[in-house]
C-alpha cells in the first residue's frame, strides 16, 4: 500500500538519486586518486632505486613521498580524510606533517553539509523517515479513522508494530539497496587489501538502517502524541532540526568548552624549542668531545667509527624521543578528544552515527594517526639504515662516503597495513552503544504511548 503512495515514491526517488549521485561522484574521485597514487608511488620507488651513487645522508634527504591508501568505504564516509593530509614527504630529520587536505583545496561551499554519502544519510535519511512516519497515526486521528479502528477492536500494539515494520522495510529498501550496490562497486573496483571490506560494508549499511529506524520511531511517537498531522509534522521537523543540525554544532561548542583542543602549533613550537639547543654549535662540539673521550682518543681520525655518522645517529635518536613524547602526547590527546565526541552521541544520534560511520569506514582519526606513525616508522627505518652505513664506514681525510643501489635496495617499499576491523569496533563501542540506546529508549518510550493510544 505504501508503494502506491505518491509521496513515498517521490521521497524515496529523491533519496536514492541523492545517494547514487554523491556515491558515484565519490567513487569516481577515489578511482582517479587511487590510479594517480599508484602511478606516482611506482615512480617514486623507481627514483629511489635509480639514485646515482651518493652519500647515504644525501639519499636520506632525497627521501620520497608516501601516500595514504583509502578504505573502499571512504566513498561513503571520507571521515577525517578531507581534514587531514594524505601525503607525507619522507626525509631526513623531519617528522613532516601529512599535507594537502582535500578541504584546503575545496571551495568555500564544500562544507555546506551534503558533500558525501554519509552527509546524505546523516541529514536526509532522518528527514525521509520523519516524512514517512509523521502521519502514521495523526492523520488517522484527524480523519477519525483511528476512532473507527480502535472502536472496532483493533489492538493498538499490533497496529503500531505493523505500521512501524512496514515503514522500516520501505526505509531499509530505500537506504540499503543503493548503499550495498555502491559498496559492491567500490569493493570490486578499488583497492581493498587489508581492509576487510565486505564485513565493514555490511556492518556499515546495517548501522545506517538502524539510524533511519531511530528517526522513524521518533516520527511515529510524534504521530502518537499529536492530535493532528500538522502537529506531528511540526514536532518531527523540530526534532530533525534539533538533532541533525543544531545538536552537532552544539556538541562542537560544548566540547571546546569542556576540553579545549590541544594546539598543534604549540606542540610544534615546543618540539622546535627542544631540538634547538641540541643543534647549537656548543652542544655539537660538546657531543663530539664527549664521543672522543668515550672512545679514549683525541682525534676523530682515530675513531673506529665515523664521527659524523655517529653524531647523526645520536641526534636522530634525540629527535625521535622528542617527537615520540610531544607528538605522541598530541596524537593521544586528539584521539581521546575524538573518542570523547562519541559521548556527544548522547546529544544526538547524528553525532553518534558520525563516529560509528567513520570508524567502520576506516576513515577515523585513529586510522589517520596509524598512517602518520607508520610513515614516521618508515622514515626512521630509512634514516637509521643510512646513518648506520655512514657510522660503520669511517672515512679518512675528509672524504665523503658514497653508497650505491645495493643500499637503496635494502629499503623496502612503504607498505601500510590498516588497523583491523576488530580495533575499529573497539574504537566505536561507545557511540555504537549510544545509537542502540537511542533506539531502545525510543522503543521503550513508545510502549506506554501505544497502550494509552486514544482516538
Amino acid at each position, binding site marked *: 500500500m505504501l508503494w502506491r503512495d505518491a509521496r513515498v515514491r517521490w521521497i524515496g526517488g529523491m533519496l536514492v538519486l541523492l545517494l547514487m549521485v554523491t556515491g558515484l561522484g565519490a567513487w569516481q574521485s577515489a578511482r582517479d586518486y587511487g590510479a*594517480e*597514487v599508484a602511478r*606516482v608511488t611506482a*615512480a617514486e620507488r623507481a*627514483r629511489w632505486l*635509480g639514485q*646515482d651513487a*651518493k652519500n647515504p645522508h644525501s639519499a636520506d634527504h*632525497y627521501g*620520497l*613521498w608516501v*601516500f595514504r591508501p583509502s578504505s573502499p568505504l571512504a566513498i561513503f564516509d571520507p*571521515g*577525517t580524510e578531507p*581534514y587531514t593530509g594524505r*601525503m607525507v*614527504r619522507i*626525509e631526513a630529520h623531519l617528522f*613532516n*606533517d601529512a*599535507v594537502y*587536505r582535500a*578541504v*584546503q583545496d*575545496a*571551495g*568555500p*561551499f*564544500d562544507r*555546506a*553539509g*551534503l*558533500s558525501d554519502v554519509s552527509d546524505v544519510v546523516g*541529514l536526509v535519511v532522518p528527514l525521509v523517515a520523519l*516524512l514517512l512516519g509523521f502521519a502514521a497515526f495523526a492523520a488517522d486521528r484527524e480523519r477519525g479513522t483511528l476512532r473507527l479502528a480502535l472502536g472496532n477492536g483493533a489492538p493498538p500494539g499490533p497496529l503500531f508494530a505493523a505500521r512501524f515494520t512496514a515503514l522500516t522495510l520501505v526505509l531499509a529498501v530505500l537506504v540499503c539497496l543503493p548503499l550495498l550496490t555502491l559498496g559492491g562497486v567500490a569493493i570490486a573496483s578499488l583497492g581493498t587489501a587489508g581492509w576487510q571490506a565486505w564485513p565493514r560494508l555490511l556492518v556499515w549499511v546495517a548501522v545506517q538502517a538502524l539510524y533511519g529506524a531511530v528517526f522513524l520511531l521518533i516520527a511515529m511517537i510524534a504521530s502518537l502524541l499529536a492530535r493532528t498531522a*500538522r502537529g506531528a*509534522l511540526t514536532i518531527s*521537523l523540530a526534532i530533525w*532540526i534539533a538533532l541533525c543540525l*543544531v545538536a*552537532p*554544532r*552544539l*556538541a*562542537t*561548542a560544548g*566540547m*571546546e568548552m569542556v576540553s579545549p*583542543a590541544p594546539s*598543534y602549533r604549540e606542540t610544534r*613550537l615546543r618540539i622546535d624549542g627542544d631540538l634547538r639547543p641540541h643543534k647549537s*654549535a656548543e652542544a655539537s*662540539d660538546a657531543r663530539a668531545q664527549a664521543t672522543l673521550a668515550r672512545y679514549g682518543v683525541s682525534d676523530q681520525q682515530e675513531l673506529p667509527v665515523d664521527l659524523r655518522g655517529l653524531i647523526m645517529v645520536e641526534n636522530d635518536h634525540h629527535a625521535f624521543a622528542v617527537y615520540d613524547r610531544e607528538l605522541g602526547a598530541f596524537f593521544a590527546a*586528539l584521539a581521546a*578528544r*575524538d573518542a570523547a*565526541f562519541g559521548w556527544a552521541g548522547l546529544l544526538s544520534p547524528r*553525532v553518534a552515527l*558520525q563516529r560509528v560511520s567513520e570508524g567502520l569506514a576506516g576513515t577515523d*582519526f585513529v586510522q589517520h594517526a596509524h598512517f602518520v606513525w607508520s610513515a614516521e616508522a618508515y622514515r626512521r627505518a630509512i634514516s637509521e639504515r643510512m646513518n648506520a652505513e655512514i657510522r660503520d664506514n669511517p672515512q679518512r681525510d675528509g672524504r665523503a662516503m658514497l653508497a650505491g643501489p645495493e643500499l637503496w635496495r635494502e629499503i623496502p617499499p612503504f607498505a601500510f597495513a590498516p588497523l583491523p576491523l576488530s580495533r575499529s569496533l573497539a574504537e566505536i563501542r561507545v557511540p555504537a552503544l549510544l545509537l542502540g540506546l537511542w533506539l531502545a529508549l525510543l522503543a521503550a518510550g513508545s510502549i506506554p504511548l501505544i497502550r494509552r493510544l486514544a482516538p
Partner: protein
Amino acid sequence: MSQSRFLPLLRTELRLILRERLTWAILAALQVALCLGGHTGAQRVAGERAAIAQASDDAARSLRDAKEAAARYAVPRAMTVNYWQDPTHAFGYMHYFLAAYAVKPPTPLAVLSAGQSEIQPAVMKTSFGFSTVFEDTAYELGSSAALRLGPFDLAFVLIYLVPLAVIAIAGTRLAAEQDAGILRLIAAQPVHPRIVAGAKFGAAALILVAAVIGGTALALALAGWRDLPPGWATTLALLAAALCAYVVLWVAACALAASLWRGAVASLTILVLTWACVTVVLPALLGLAVDKLAPPPSRIAAIDASRQVQDAFYRGDEAAKVTAAWLTARLPGTTDRPDLRETPQINRLARDAFYETTLAPYRAGMQARAEGAAAWSARLALLSPATTLALTLDTAAGTDAARHAAFLASASEYRRSLRAFFEPRILAQELRPAAVCAGCPARLDFDAYDAVPRFPTVIAADAARWQAALSALTLWGVALALAGLAFRRFAIWSV
C-alpha cells in the same frame, strides 16, 4: 481607508504575536544561540590573536638567539661552528635562524564568522625549501570530528537558525487560521486580504528584525566586542541592513507559502524544505559548480613534477651545469672563479632557482585556482540568500576564501622578497668572505638582522564594505520580490 485599517491591525497583530508563549520561547532560544555563537567567535578570535602573538614572539626569539650567538662567536676561542649554526653566515642565518611569519590578522568583525579560518591557517612560517612543493602546508591539526560537524558561530546562527526561528513564528500565520476555520470569519469582514496578510506578516517581520538585530548586538556586547576602528561603521550598518533583508526575505517566504492556501502542514513542509534547499542543497550544488568552473589542479601531479626535477638535478653533471648557468646570469664577471660553483651555498641557491622555475607553473596554477574558486564562489553565492549572507559575514570577518587566496599570494611575495634580500648578501659573502674577527668561531660578518623585511599585514576594509553593500542590495531585492509575489497572490481569499 487602508492605512487607517492597517495600523490598528498591525498593532493588534504585534500584541497577538508577543502574547504567544511560543514566540518568547523561540526568541529566547535564538538569543541563547546568538550569545553562544558570539562566545565561540570571541574564543576563536582570541586563539588567532594568541597564535599571531606566538609567531611574533618566536620571530623575536629567533632574532635574539641570532644576535646572542653572533656576539658569542665574535670572541676568539677554539670551537667548530658549522654554517647552519652561524648567524654571521647570511645563508646560515636565512635557513636556520630566521623565523619569519606571514600572518593574517583578524578583522574588527572577525567574531562574526569562522568561515575558512578553521581549515586555512592565519599564520604561516616562511620556508625556503621545496621538499613539500607548495608553501601552503601549514595547518592546525585539530579534532576532525569537530571540523566535520562545523562550528557553532554567529554565522551559523544567523544563516541557519534565524530562518528557522522565522518559520517557527511566521510559518503558519494565516495557514493555521485556515486550518482552524478562523479564516472564514476573517474573510467575511470588510477588509482586503492584503491588509490582513500585511499586518500579520509585517508584525512578525518587525518582531523578528528587532530580535535578530538586537540579539546579535547583545551577543556581540556580551562576547566583549567593543571598539570599531574608523571605516568599519559603514560596513556594520550595511551588514545590519543585509541581516534585516535576510529576515524579511524569510518572512516574505512564509507569506508566499501561506498565499498558496494549502494549510499549515503544507506551508511548514514547503518552508522547511525550501530552507533545506537554500541552506544545504543549493550551497552543495554551488560547491560542485565551483569545482567544475575552477577545477583544483592535482597536488600529486605537482609532487611528481617536483621529484622529476629533483631527480634530474642530481643526475650526472646536471647540478654543475645548472649552477654555472645560474652564476653566470647573476655574476657575469666571475668566470675566473670556478671555485664558486663548488660552494654548497651557491649550489643550493642555484638549485632552488632551478626548482622554483620548474615548479612555478604548478604554484601559479594552484594560486590561480584559489583565486578562481574564491571569485566564482563570490559570484555564485548570489544565487542563494544563505550563501550571499555567508559570504558577506565571512568577508566582514576576514575569513573568506578571497582573503585567504590574497594572503597566500602575499605570503609567496614575502618569501620572494626575503630571498631577494638574502641572495646578494650570500653572494657577496661567497665572493669576498670576511670573518668578523681573526680566531673567532664566527665564520663571516652578516649582521643586518634588523633590516630583514617584515611581512606587511593588511586588513582590507574595502572588500568587506563592498560585499556587505552588494549583499544588502541583493537580499533586499529578493525579499521585496518575494513580498511582491505574495502581495499579488493575496488578491483574494481562499475559503
